[in-house]
């Protein structure tokens, strides 16, 4: 390898590192900028695991470039030190090669076990404040949020008080999606005929982006939503205003809403059918049951 190549490569790596550093400092990196306890714990696991891995990666990189330089064919040293039969097929060396990564992985294994239990998405958060349940339905191609206790529903915007644990129950009346609010909590799959759960809380007020991570058809890119954490007072006012002035979400209104449509604006409903979520779930669950037939390809603007 020529000296000029090495210089050029070093410049490239440094420039890349500098650009990345500047970018990370200026941009909002959602996963690394958590706004709730769940996302914070998940971020910490990512950071811990990365640093543990670095214990292997740094020596590997050092040895790689050190050996590559020191034992390159055109270096005078390589001629002297060349030991063609050195294969280090000794028990001790092999034990070390296995042991070093194994110890790190053992530590990571313990973390995996503990964190899987501590951060089980189904596990309700511990808090003095009463948890708010919110039902979520993935539709083609929008999110429907149903507030069973408050008796309202909304599309593509979910609002809840900051500091209050939220317990999401999720199902779909559409192909599979995932429900993800990177600043608040990781994903859980959303499937028709099944209900999954996700617990999270926001520790501060603000608007957080929500996404779907699983391709669900033509309008999939529009499966984005806003999660809005507000103070309790604002939340109460929000509920009251929706109850006062929104169209009722009846069975018929739901069928209209569930018809495929893309890039839906935010919409609010007064929940007229209290058992809507259960009905959606069970249309798929009961073998042989007739489903609400919604013609494919029909586009409805809510």
């Amino acid at each position, binding site marked *: 390898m020529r000296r000029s190549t090495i210089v050029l490569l070093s410049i490239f790596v440094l420039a890349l590192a500098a650009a990345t550093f500047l970018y990370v400092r200026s941009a909002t990196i959602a996963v690394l900028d958590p706004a709730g306890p769940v996302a914070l714990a998940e971020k910490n696991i990512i950071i811990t695991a990365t640093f543990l891995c670095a214990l292997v990666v740094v020596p590997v990189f050092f*040895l790689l470039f050190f050996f590559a330089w020191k034992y390159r064919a055109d270096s005078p040293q390589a001629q002297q030190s060349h030991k063609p039969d050195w294969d280090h097929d000794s028990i001790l060396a092999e034990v070390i090669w296995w042991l070093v990564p194994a110890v790190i992985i053992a530590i990571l294994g313990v973390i995996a076990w503990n964190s899987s239990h501590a951060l089980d998405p189904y596990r309700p958060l511990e808090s003095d404040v009463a948890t708010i349940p919110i039902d979520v339905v993935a539709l083609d191609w929008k999110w429907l949020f149903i507030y069973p206790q408050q008796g309202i529903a909304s599309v593509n915007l979910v609002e809840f008080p900051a500091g209050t644990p939220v317990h999401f129950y999720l199902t779909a009346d559409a192909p599979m999606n995932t429900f993800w609010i990177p600043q608040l909590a990781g994903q859980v799959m959303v499937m028709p005929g099944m209900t999954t759960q996700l617990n999270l809380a926001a520790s501060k007020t603000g608007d957080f982006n929500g996404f779907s991570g699983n391709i669900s058809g033509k309008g*999939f890119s529009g499966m984005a939503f806003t999660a809005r954490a507000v103070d309790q007072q604002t939340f109460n006012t929000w509920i009251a205003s929706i109850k006062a002035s929104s169209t009722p979400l009846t069975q018929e209104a739901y069928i209209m809403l569930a018809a495929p449509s893309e890039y839906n604006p935010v919409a609010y409903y007064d929940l007229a059918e209290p058992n809507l979520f259960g009905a959606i779930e069970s249309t798929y669950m009961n073998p042989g049951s007739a489903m609400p037939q919604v013609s494919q390809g029909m586009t409805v603007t809510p």
Partner: protein
Amino acid sequence: MNWQTLIFGNLSWSVLPENAIAWFGALTVIAGVLAVVGVVTYLGRWQWLWDEWFTSLDPKKIGVMYIVVALVMLVRGGSDALLMRAQQATSVGDSYGILTSTHFQEIFSAHGSIMIFFLAMGFMFGLINLIVPLQIGSRDVAFPFLNSLSFWLFFAGAALINCSLIFGDFSTAGWLAYPPLSELRYSPTSGVDYWIWSLQIGGLGSLLSGVNFFATIVKMRTKGMNWMRLPMFSWTVLGSMTLVIFAFPILTVTLALLYLDRTAGMHFFTAELGGNMMMYVNLIWAWGHPEVYILILPAFGVFSEVVPVFSGKKLAGYTSMVFSVWAIVVLSFIVWLHHFFTMGAGADVNAFFGIMTAVIAVPTGVKIFNWLFTMYRGRIRFESPMLWFMGFVVLFTLGGVAGVVMAEPPADYQLHNSLFLVAHFHTMIVSGVLFGYFAGLTFWFPKIFGFKMNEKWGIRAFWFWLIGFILAFGPLYLLGFEGATRRLDHYSSSLGWQPLFIVAGIGAISIAIGFSCQVAQLVATFRDYKRNRVGNDPWDGRTLEWSVASPAPSYNFAALPIVHSRDEFWEEKHGASTQEQKFEDFSMPKNTGAAVIVSSFVFLLGFGAVWHIWWLVIAALLGATIAVLVHVFNEDSEYAVSGAQLAHREAGLQYPTSL
């Protein structure tokens, strides 16, 4: 059912492409095929192609054909990648880019399917065919006809998937076609059927190849080559083929069930009527995760040959290497659930699969140490195979870290199906698998053709690939952290993602330039072949393949070698071992066109099944069966080679070594 449906199934004029870009794709395929046909006809080479290549049962020639098809598929999959990068760099805010969302979804589905099944698998089987028989001191594979059939089935699958560019559409459900999106209710066109049948046919070829090379390595090693003398590439291939044998039947069944869902009104995986979509997801990953190791193990094998040769040293820790291969083989079957930690399976299940996933990093890490200590006190020549290795270690280690991080289930909740994941698996597949195969191709090319590949263009290709890869996938890691999920054809401008997507696009262009360098490399290689001609041992090799002439004769070894040590040829060169050449009579398989005929029928069967042309399915099945039977009852399938005659010829065939 009217007569039109009876004859043409679901085919009609409306299946032709719908927009300009799709037409461009279709016309490119048609023009490409016409150009090849035209050139071959003009040169009058059909007879030669048929006699010397299409009907050949010589694994080296089959290997070359595999790699040619794989590289053509790389062009297809790469064009898809460029279109995706163009779309994501431009489709932001009020702009919706150059593709419709449906077309974009077809493109990423095709990109993944083609790159895995028809680039990576094809390239892998190509290299295996080229070198495994030579490396284990065998004249042929265990089942020569089956080998030819495997290739032609692979070719039929590749042809079928590209038919979707002209007739009809392709699946929009991603490269693994999760139901219920891939079910008839949400994907009513024939796109998913194209996906099912091209994978089914290509997968059948892979399964047969797996059986073949497993048997070859187990049964056909030359005298003296006991297990602990088996060259490392052959070890990794044995591991990989074991995985093929266990994993591919799962794929076959899963695809068949999905097709029954779509065609016969079954409900294995539908959302309604008792179907279970997560059963599909489990099944497809029970194949899909081993598949990753099927591809990567032979790449590890390539590096385990390249590093010792270019360091002029024995492989350090051979025993560790063997054990790590088998640790990976076993573990790769108990990690599949990490592809869907987000399913909500519960903490115990997630923790188990998370730990297993982390554990599989141990044998992989061991391998990296083995290669590094092979370099220690070596005399390292940085020719292009070694450069690919250097690039591989850097990128693969970083990609591996990303993998270990995602093995922690709660971390995966945040990274699942984000662009971070996309960047992770591209790091493993491109810098692991593809860099390894490029190194292997450069390394073994002279053994097959008798001349080296052009080194200057090879090095240029390496740098463009490396820099391009970093620029294309570095931003995707960051975008994943910013919440960008995979497969988005459009995003809001307020997210601020566009600059990174543009950088990724620049990276993709650099990779395209890297690939162009490789095309230039091939042109220069064949143009200057006289100048680049080499002897039997151009790299100062260590294993048996370097002991025979370059290009290797069709029968590989005039006299079967007897192995006394691990690096037999190296020991011979250094006087530690000698070969007593004993020429015996043997027989070799005759060329046969049966595999071409069988696979043509299978292609028609696939096409019929895609378009529901049932008479064609039945006729093609009948044709394929008859063609197989005719071949099976053909007794005249071998010819005798005289040992005495070969002994005479060998004396004149010896080339001086170049080193």
